[in-house]
């Protein structure tokens, strides 16, 4: 099997990694960079647990080849570290937005990109925006509340950097 060399910035650290051409971004992150916060559920794009940011936008790392990320900036749940990320974590904790934690990294990454868009959103809009992330434990209400609160906070303080 052929290999490719991928230059990719992961959570601020530039890396050059040689992988088999068929390697997904998820496998690169988990097996090669040892960032196991990104979870793999379905590998079909449906469950959302593998969601990471690529050049600022959410993508399914199970449906993105590592080779397609050459030159890209990737941020995983481990790399979410600013005021929006902290507010999200805080509300996830107080709203009971996680139990087993399997879906949580994908929820946080998806929620993070959502709140960074700084648009007013009611509960239904938040729920629809999270429809691509499956949670088998919580029943979603806590997650939706947490993301909506983080969104409201972001709108109120306007500290987008």
């Amino acid at each position, binding site marked *: 099997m052929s290999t490719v060399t991928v230059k990719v910035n992961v959570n601020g650290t530039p890396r050059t990694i040689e992988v088999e*051409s*068929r390697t*997904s971004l998820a496998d690169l992150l988990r097996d090669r960079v040892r960032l196991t916060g990104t979870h793999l559920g379905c*590998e*079909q*794009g449906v469950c*959302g647990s593998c*969601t990471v940011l*690529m050049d600022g*936008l*959410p*993508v*399914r790392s*199970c*449906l*993105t*080849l590592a*080779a*397609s990320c050459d030159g890209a900036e990737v941020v995983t749940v481990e790399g979410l570290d600013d005021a929006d990320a902290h507010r999200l974590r805080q509300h996830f904790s107080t709203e009971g937005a996680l139990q087993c934690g399997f879906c949580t990294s994908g929820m946080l990454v*998806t929620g993070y*990109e*959502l709140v960074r868009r700084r648009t007013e959103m009611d509960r239904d809009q938040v*729920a*629809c*925006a999270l*429809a*691509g*992330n499956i949670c088998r434990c919580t029943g979603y209400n806590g997650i939706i509340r947490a993301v909506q609160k983080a969104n409201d906070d972001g709108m109120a303080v306007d500290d987008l950097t």
Partner: protein
Amino acid sequence: MLTELGDDAKILAGGQSLLPIMNLRLAEPAHLVDISRVGDLMGADEDTTSVTLGAAITHQAIEDGLVPDPCLGLLTTAAAGIGYRAIRCRGTVGGSLAHADSAAEWPTVLTAIGADVTVRSAQDERTVPLRGFFHGFFTTSLESDELITAVHLPRFAKSTRWALEKTNRKEGEFGESMAVAIVSEGSASIWLGAAKDVPVNLAHVETLLADHPADQVPALGEVRDRVAADLDLSVPELDLAQRHRLQIHAVTVHRALSRALSPEVPA
């Protein structure tokens, strides 16, 4: 390059249809040619009558209005309804057309709009109307060495009214039915997705509308009879499940008509 690599090579655009199939090991192409960052395929051009979108433009770029929408918001609405945001950030309009799922947004919506695509091989380039481009389940008139490079869209007249109605059980899933109605003075273009192997022109529904007083929505029963005719269905012979599916299509079309014909709200 595709000619050189032969049958074992596949184009990879966003990978949002190809990689799920590869992850299931249903396809194992020996070579992938990644076009997702080819600059020429990512640009948009416009003039007074039309807009050209590069085939590698993502659903998200259209959703977020990063490229012009000459169809008065129909494109942005269609894009925003595709799957989930993370799918839209990778999936491309050209990939969706080449994949040719009749339940997907672009095949039905862009056919209803009357768009053309430019298709290129190493030797040749041709521009073909999407009406006639889809041949069957996941099959198009594309040859294996051909690439869709661009989509050409006509500008809607200001008075054009449109509605896109997708019926699904959960936000982000493929539609169980999808109807597009585009109504402008004196003419209507009404298409149905997810009903057959290719998008279906609802010619009988279009006639029903033409024969109807303007701005009045035909009754659901009338719409259902016309949809059945357009799908070549003989209602008395249908079993319950088939009737249920017909009803879903009829309701979806009826909702689209109601929205496209209602005078006050923009569609």
